């Protein structure tokens, strides 16, 4: 089974597609077979980042049942070992995916015959996005160092957390816990998933343990994009610390990705950034993040400098 990374995050324009595309290239360069899946349904542009036009196949073939096997809808990219499944030719209404179709896509992705899958998700916290995020082994949340972006990222993390929490509660039939909290808060709306956990902890310690264990399986990775000089270098680490302290899941900060004017140029030129500008700090940062994702920095001696940097 392929190892799945989902690239998401609350806010738009933080560089999710940029990071998905470039990490895809970096992972492929590690000698692994990688499939990029554009799941920003209704707003697909991952293929543009990759400089691909005139894609003949994509997710639409799978959804309209003209192709049964999802892996047959993938198209090669300019990078060896790297393939893309685009949602370019899907209907304009594909953003409102039916539950059954969503489950079908998730199951098919799990069965893709490849080493890594990178899912490029859209902004926002709709159920589709959250469920694709939760279908991954590691969810990457991309944010930029502005309060607006941090706020939406936290919102996103909380939304994913709440979704996961509800899944667990449903599976283990203690839905009453959610209701209880609902009644407790002033307006009957659950504002924070933390409240639910607290409530279960108070009322049912035995189940709380199970809940804690299940939530502990959830793995978030954080990436800070557009890092500018003279900024707090440890911002990402601090967010990681707070998340690990207040949620029961595992959070890991993967690193800062330096801001670079040329990112804009590469997108205008419709070329993958790491291929067009390989010798920039930004490319090095992306490489380091890719290595961290696959745990390569553990053995690779060339990565001494990354450890020092972090």
């Amino acid at each position, binding site marked *: 089974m392929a190892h799945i990374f989902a690239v998401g995050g609350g806010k738009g324009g933080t560089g999710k597609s940029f990071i998905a595309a470039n990490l895809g290239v970096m992972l492929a360069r590690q000698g692994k077979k990688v499939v990029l899946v554009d799941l920003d349904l209704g707003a697909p542009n991952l293929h543009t980042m990759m400089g691909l036009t005139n894609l003949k196949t994509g997710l639409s073939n799978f959804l309209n049942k003209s192709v049964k096997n999802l892996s047959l809808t993938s198209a090669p990219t300019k990078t060896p070992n790297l393939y893309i499944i685009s949602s370019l030719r899907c209907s304009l209404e594909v953003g409102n995916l039916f539950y059954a179709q969503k489950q079908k896509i998730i199951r098919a992705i799990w069965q893709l015959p490849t080493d890594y899958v990178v899912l490029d998700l859209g902004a926002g916290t709709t159920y589709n996005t959250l469920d694709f995020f939760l279908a991954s082994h590691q969810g990457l949340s991309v944010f930029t160092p502005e309060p607006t972006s*941090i*706020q939406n990222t936290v919102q996103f993390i909380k939304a994913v957390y709440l979704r996961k929490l509800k899944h667990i509660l449903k599976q283990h039939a203690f839905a009453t816990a959610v209701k209880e909290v609902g009644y407790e808060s002033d307006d009957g709306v659950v504002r924070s998933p*933390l409240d639910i956990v*607290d409530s279960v902890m108070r009322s049912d310690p035995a189940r709380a343990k199970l809940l804690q264990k299940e939530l502990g399986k959830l793995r978030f990775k954080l990436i800070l994009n557009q890092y500018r000089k003279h900024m707090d270098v440890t911002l990402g680490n*601090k967010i990681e610390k707070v998340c690990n302290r*207040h949620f029961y899941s595992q959070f890991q900060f993967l690193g800062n990705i330096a801001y670079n004017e040329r990112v804009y140029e590469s997108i205008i030129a419709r070329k993958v950034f790491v291929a067009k500008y390989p010798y920039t700090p930004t490319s090095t940062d992306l490489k380091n993040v890719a290595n961290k994702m696959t745990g390569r920095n553990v053995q690779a001696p060339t990565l001494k400098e990354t450890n020092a940097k972090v």
Partner: protein
Amino acid sequence: MRKFEELNHYQIFGIPINASAFEIRQAYKETLSIYGNDSPISYSFFTEEESKEILDRVEEAFSTLIDQEKRELYDKMLVHDKKIDPSDLTKKKQKVPTPLFSSKTPSGAAISKTIKKRIKDKDLKKTKEAILSKDMISGDDLKQLRQTVGIKIEDLFEVTRITVSILEAIENDNFGTLPSTVYLKNFLKAYAKLFEVDPKKIIDGYLKNLNHIKGTS
């Protein structure tokens, strides 16, 4: 928020229970950069009430730990509640501020140690006696002392932190580049102490010699 409520003062700051005041201050500053009012992290994570609640706890923790008396009482309470191991309190491995101008750079410290050992191991009695018996002591005499041990002028710099150019001027009686007498005396003292000869005699002899050279030239 429950998770935060369960933390003791030390856990809030993420410091060991034998932390020094310096460490506490540093950790406090760090914690404020996360939970403080102008932190984007706190702003995104917590509601205003939650944030205030957390900040109150942080302030309480800091004011307790930084006050020696209050801290002792608090520690006693933790020990009494069996929350901490009392033996950890007495462990001494505290971090203190690094001086801005440290004379002992990490690598320098190691070099300095080996040089001092070499000087100690060498029998310098004869050379020392020969020098001290003189009325006027020249830079050459000092140089001889150094060469008998077999160390370089750069090694001397590592131990004494006197710049190489000044050390050279001292050894060559180059009074044109020598510093003023006040400083020179201190440098000579350091030089003499390193080789364990009487500093007073060396300073007097050296200055006498220097004046003599100045007079003749």
